């Protein structure tokens, strides 16, 4: 079989090899670099997206946390306000109760005093009448003359009055 020289430049082979090199470049680009670079790019995009998602989720969680904390603080404040208002109300009611009890007591006391005073007056009057009668009897016996009760009423009363003042 015919062979070419060991060291030679064959023009058409030379041209064909240049073309082969560029065809090979295109094939490698088309079948290796393009799909692989696409996949790498996709993976990078995916990783970026995941980082972004995580960041936004964290921000959201932070926002929720702040919201939660404020609402908790609000609730606590409200509870404190409720408790304090209840305390105030209870205090007021207790004060009112005590006051009304005191007033009632004072009324009872005043009534009792009035009763006592009336009873005393009544007793004194009874005693006065009794003493008046007695005095009239005694005086009648002393003067042997019946003292007309109506006539001497004034005198008797004055006497009793004096007695009462003296007693």
């Amino acid at each position, binding site marked *: 079989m015919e062979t*070419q020289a060991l060291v030679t430049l064959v023009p058409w082979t030379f041209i064909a090899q240049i073309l082969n090199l560029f065809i090979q*470049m295109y094939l*490698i680009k088309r079948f290796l670099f393009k799909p*692989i670079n696409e996949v790498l790019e996709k993976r990078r995009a995916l990783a970026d997206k995941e980082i972004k998602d995580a960041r936004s989720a964290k921000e959201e969680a932070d926002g929720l946390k702040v919201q939660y904390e404020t609402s908790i603080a609000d609730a606590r404040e409200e509870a404190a306000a409720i408790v304090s208002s209840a305390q105030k109300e209870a205090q007021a009611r207790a004060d009112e109760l005590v006051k009304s009890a005191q007033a009632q007591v004072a009324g009872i006391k005043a009534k009792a005093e009035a009763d006592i005073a009336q009873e005393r007056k009544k007793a004194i009057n009874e005693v006065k009448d009794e003493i008046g009668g007695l005095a009239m009897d005694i005086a009648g016996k002393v003067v042997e003359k019946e003292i007309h009760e109506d006539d001497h009423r004034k005198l008797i009363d004055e006497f009793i009055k004096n007695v009462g003042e003296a007693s």
Partner: protein
Amino acid sequence: MNFDISGAKIFFRIPTGIPILGDFLISETLVVSWIVMAIITGLCIFLTRNLKVENITKRQAVAEMIVETANNFVRNNTGGNKFDKLIPFIAALFGTSIVSNLISLVGLRSPTADLSTEAAWAIVVFIMITANKIKASGFGGYLKGFTTPIFIMTPFNILSEIATPISMACRHFGNILSGVVINGLIYAALAVASSALLGLLPGAVGRVLSQVPILDVGVPAILSVYFDWFSGAMQAFIFTMLTIMYIANAAEG
């Protein structure tokens, strides 16, 4: 025993009638080149089947590693993303070169054992270097660059410019050709040695066995570790490295 080394076989000759270019030769070089291209392209298609973003297969990992290595190689040596367009070219150059060099292991003749192949690559690289130089400093600046540092140096500068592709082509070609020559010599020498050794056997047995080059099995494989594997990978790397270095330097002006 005669031993001769010839160039690539010519399978078919297509007469073109064009004066300087001569006939189109369907030679071993071209046929094996096409085989090499088919191997590389087939490998690319095989590696990039069923690409996934997550849970990748080993095949995809290898493909990604190749792409990343090529990207990093070009970016590290040019310092930036300026030459990202060149990455497939560099990859094609390296891939074609290394597969062409190593295909001699299966008994085919390397396309790189033909100076036409390397000359073609070197011319492409040379045109790229020149284009980048002109792009970096303008056509006037490019021409002016030959007169530095003094006008007297102009012929030497032109010579060194032309020497670039020639040295690149010849370095690669010489290394691969030397591998071919030495492998041929070793095969021939071992065939002679085995026939001499087995010829010592008496009678018809010795005569038959001495025709079988028994030493050619196994022994050349050891030597091919250097001449095919090491040299082949090394030359592919050197050629690619020089290409990217020259182009990066050219772009710096």
